[in-house]
């Protein structure tokens, strides 16, 4: 690793004071540290957020589940509240990486990184979540701005993510067997504001599929999606799968996710 300075501020005010143009927030470090180790990333200073206890934990408030930005995946996976109210979200968290990654990696770190193959972006968009920062509330649909890009301004810090409770939902991914990232991952949700289908892994960023949503609004069943196809234009085309393969997988995984969501519990 290249040299860098390190700080672990004890409160949010000190964090925001420490940040500058060439620093990075250190959450779980499951992407940042490996990329710095390989010298793919270089920062002059890391600001460790782990002392900010208020950024960690799951809360139920006004019919929503609020997950602190520094909450590791394992705590979402195990949370009795998440398992009861949004079991599809607990299942998503329990499928990220491997157990060792889930013990360190955080929801805030994951979505701030906006990896096109990460799982959490599908939950943020597919459940209509709101990303709350020290400055503002960002609707999930406006948060992701392309590959590894978000609406966050320099120095802006995610404090928590607020998930409305859907009637039912499920997330399923066809995962890369080595990395466990999604080759294609689909969140389907019957939300209070209608059907939502969000796809990760397939394109440069997570996206919704309006045609699938309209079909599911008529009938929430796998067969409602039969014959519907997402165009392969602009989808990822790499060693893990061609754009056409991913387009085909989106339909397959979406139908299986619907079948999973349709099963109570």
């Amino acid at each position, binding site marked *: 690793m*290249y040299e*860098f300075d390190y700080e672990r501020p004890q409160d949010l005010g000190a964090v925001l004071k420490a940040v500058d143009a060439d620093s990075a927030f250190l959450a779980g470090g499951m992407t940042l*540290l*490996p990329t710095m180790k390989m010298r793919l990333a270089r920062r002059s200073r890391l600001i*460790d957020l782990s002392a900010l206890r208020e950024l960690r934990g799951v809360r139920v408030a006004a019919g929503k589940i609020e997950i602190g930005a520094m909450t590791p995946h394992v705590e979402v996976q195990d949370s009795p509240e998440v398992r009861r109210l949004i079991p599809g979200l607990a299942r998503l968290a329990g499928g990220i*990486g*491997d157990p*060792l*990654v889930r*013990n360190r990696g955080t929801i805030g770190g994951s979505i701030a990184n906006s990896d096109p193959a990460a799982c959490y972006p599908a939950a943020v968009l597919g459940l209509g979540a709101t990303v709350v920062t020290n400055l503002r509330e960002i609707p999930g649909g406006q948060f992701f701005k392309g590959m590894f890009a978000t609406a966050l301004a320099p120095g802006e810090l995610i404090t928590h993510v607020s998930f409305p409770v859907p009637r039912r939902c499920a997330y399923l991914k066809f995962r890369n067997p080595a990395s466990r990232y999604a080759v294609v991952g689909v969140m389907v949700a019957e939300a209070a504001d209608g059907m939502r289908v969000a796809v990760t892994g397939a394109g440069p960023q997570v996206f919704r599929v309006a045609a699938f949503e309209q079909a599911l609004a008529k009938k929430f069943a796998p067969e409602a999606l039969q014959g519907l196809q997402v165009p392969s234009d602009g989808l990822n085309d790499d060693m893990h799968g061609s754009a056409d393969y991913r387009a085909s997988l989106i339909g397959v995984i979406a139908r299986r996710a619907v079948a999973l969501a349709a099963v109570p519990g």
Partner: protein
Amino acid sequence: MMQIHVSCVVNGAPIAAEAEPRTLLVDFLRNTLRLTGTHVGCDTSQCGACVVHLNGRAIKSCSMLAVQAEGADITTIEGLAAKSGAVGRTGLHPMQAAFRAQHGLQCGFCTPGMIMTAVELVTRNPNPSEADVRAGLEGNLCRCTGYHNIVKAVLTAAAEMRSAPAGTESAHV
């Protein structure tokens, strides 16, 4: 270059040392504390040979900075048996004993990480199925491909740990 003071507990002993911010926890354990039972297998954060327990949770010590361990309670493979209170004639933790009994190792390089991950796995799920064990070991690679006996060892240890929880000495040791 910047040096930061690190105070933590490693295998029950208080540690106070200096580390550069870029020093990985695994290098701190191996080079500063000379606890070389924790291995580095890949340098790309994928193999799990470096797994230790941080405040009871299995983590990759190659993907964490030493300075992040400030105030933490760390257990490495060297301290596992004593920490669990699992004593006996062999002085091994039941997971270590099961890896030996079931021949859950070939070259042995991945073994410390496998054992540290497996101990947390069984702590979280005392009665795992074979599928649970395979899923729970997804973050640990054995390049000898000796998974079959590793899984057998974890299932054997889980049964042993159910019948003789940590801190009690089982009858046959």
